[in-house]
């Protein structure tokens, strides 16, 4: 690894991150919103005990802002009113940005193109799985506020810290870790 190689990598990386993170969501907002709507069905449930719904924002300025509504049916009043919990998040930030970050790392790496695409093909499902698990964890945490899950005060603090760590890991470090695994494994004798 030489400084020249790192400089070239950094330049390519900046180019790809700009293309992927800034331009592609602006160009593919409609397409991405459809994909997220399909994915959102995974979070929906309608059982006698819990009702969970997923919807994207109707505002044209923020079409990718998502909301998951969690309702504990046993706490509802006869007229249908009662406590409910909302989990608001930016679908673009949760599902797309970490993937774009990882993709730009692989695209900028000095691998043959075939291998770059292979790593991206393996990496994207991993990233999406991690994002899905992160949202599942957030739903579980939010459910505890309306009596669907019981968390003791001592555990509450730990869950809050874990929430921060999971957000940080999925948003920032998972992409780098997958890339590191690939780049360190590449060219090593197996």
């Amino acid at each position, binding site marked *: 690894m*030489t400084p020249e190689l790192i400089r070239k990598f950094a330049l390519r990386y900046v180019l790809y991150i700009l293309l992927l993170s800034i331009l592609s969501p602006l160009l593919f907002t409609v397409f991405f919103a459809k994909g997220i709507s399909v994915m959102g069905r995974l979070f929906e449930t309608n059982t006698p005990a819990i009702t969970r719904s997923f919807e994207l924002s109707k505002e044209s*300025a923020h079409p990718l802002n998502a909301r998951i509504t969690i309702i504990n049916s046993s706490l509802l009043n006869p007229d249908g009113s009662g406590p409910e919990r909302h989990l608001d998040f930016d679908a673009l930030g949760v599902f797309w940005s970490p993937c774009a970050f990882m993709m730009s790392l692989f695209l900028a790496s000095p691998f043959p193109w075939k291998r770059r695409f292979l790593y991206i093909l393996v990496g994207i499902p991993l990233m999406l799985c991690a994002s899905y698990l992160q949202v599942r964890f957030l739903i579980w945490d939010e459910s505890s506020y309306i009596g669907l899950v019981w968390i003791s005060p001592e555990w509450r603090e730990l869950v809050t810290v874990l929430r921060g760590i999971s957000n940080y890991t999925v948003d920032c470090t998972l992409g780098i*870790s997958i890339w590191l695994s690939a780049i360190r494994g590449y060219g090593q004798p197996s």
Partner: protein
Amino acid sequence: MSKSSSKKRKRERARARCSQRTVKVTKIAKANYRAPREKVILWWRQKFPGILVGLKFMGLSAVIYAVFSLIFHNALQDCLSGLIVMTGNSLIHVLGDNSLRDGTTIFSYRFAVNVAAECTGAETLCIFMAAVLMTPVTRRKRMVGILLGALTLIAINTLRVTCLYLTGAHYPSLFPLLHEKIWPIVMTPMAFLVFLGWLMTTLPAPPERVPYQA
């Protein structure tokens, strides 16, 4: 008599050879013996050489982040926010805009920005620190790298806050786009780029190629 004695000698020699071989085999076996845990680690390293490095980085950065958020949270937040607000406000004055600061807020009659805990850039610092700590260089170089890198990242974050304040004050319609979409995407890669910059200065220069002389 002589026949039986020669047979005995032969047997003894054969036994001695056999015992010598056994000792040799035992020595080799002892040298090659690995505990089951060690075997698993070796197998894992041979099969998936990179995954351990990736997991190590993820674990190390998560630990640093947990330590930051649990132990140093309040002190670090106050210190970083204060520093960013102070330098950001000075920068805004240099750029010709009048603003005031109060605690973690920069404000004027036009607009106000509050540097909350999430806006201090502690996450990017954690990524950078984990990356530097994992690089195989001397401790001194690591310490210098962490110090200079942290200062650079704080400077970049100050620029971000200044840019957001000026955008909010002069082009309010662009503020949500910059605050929610563009800057969050820029900050994490920025930590990575600062790390690459540090790596370029730390790595030894490649040896010059000596032309072949016949």
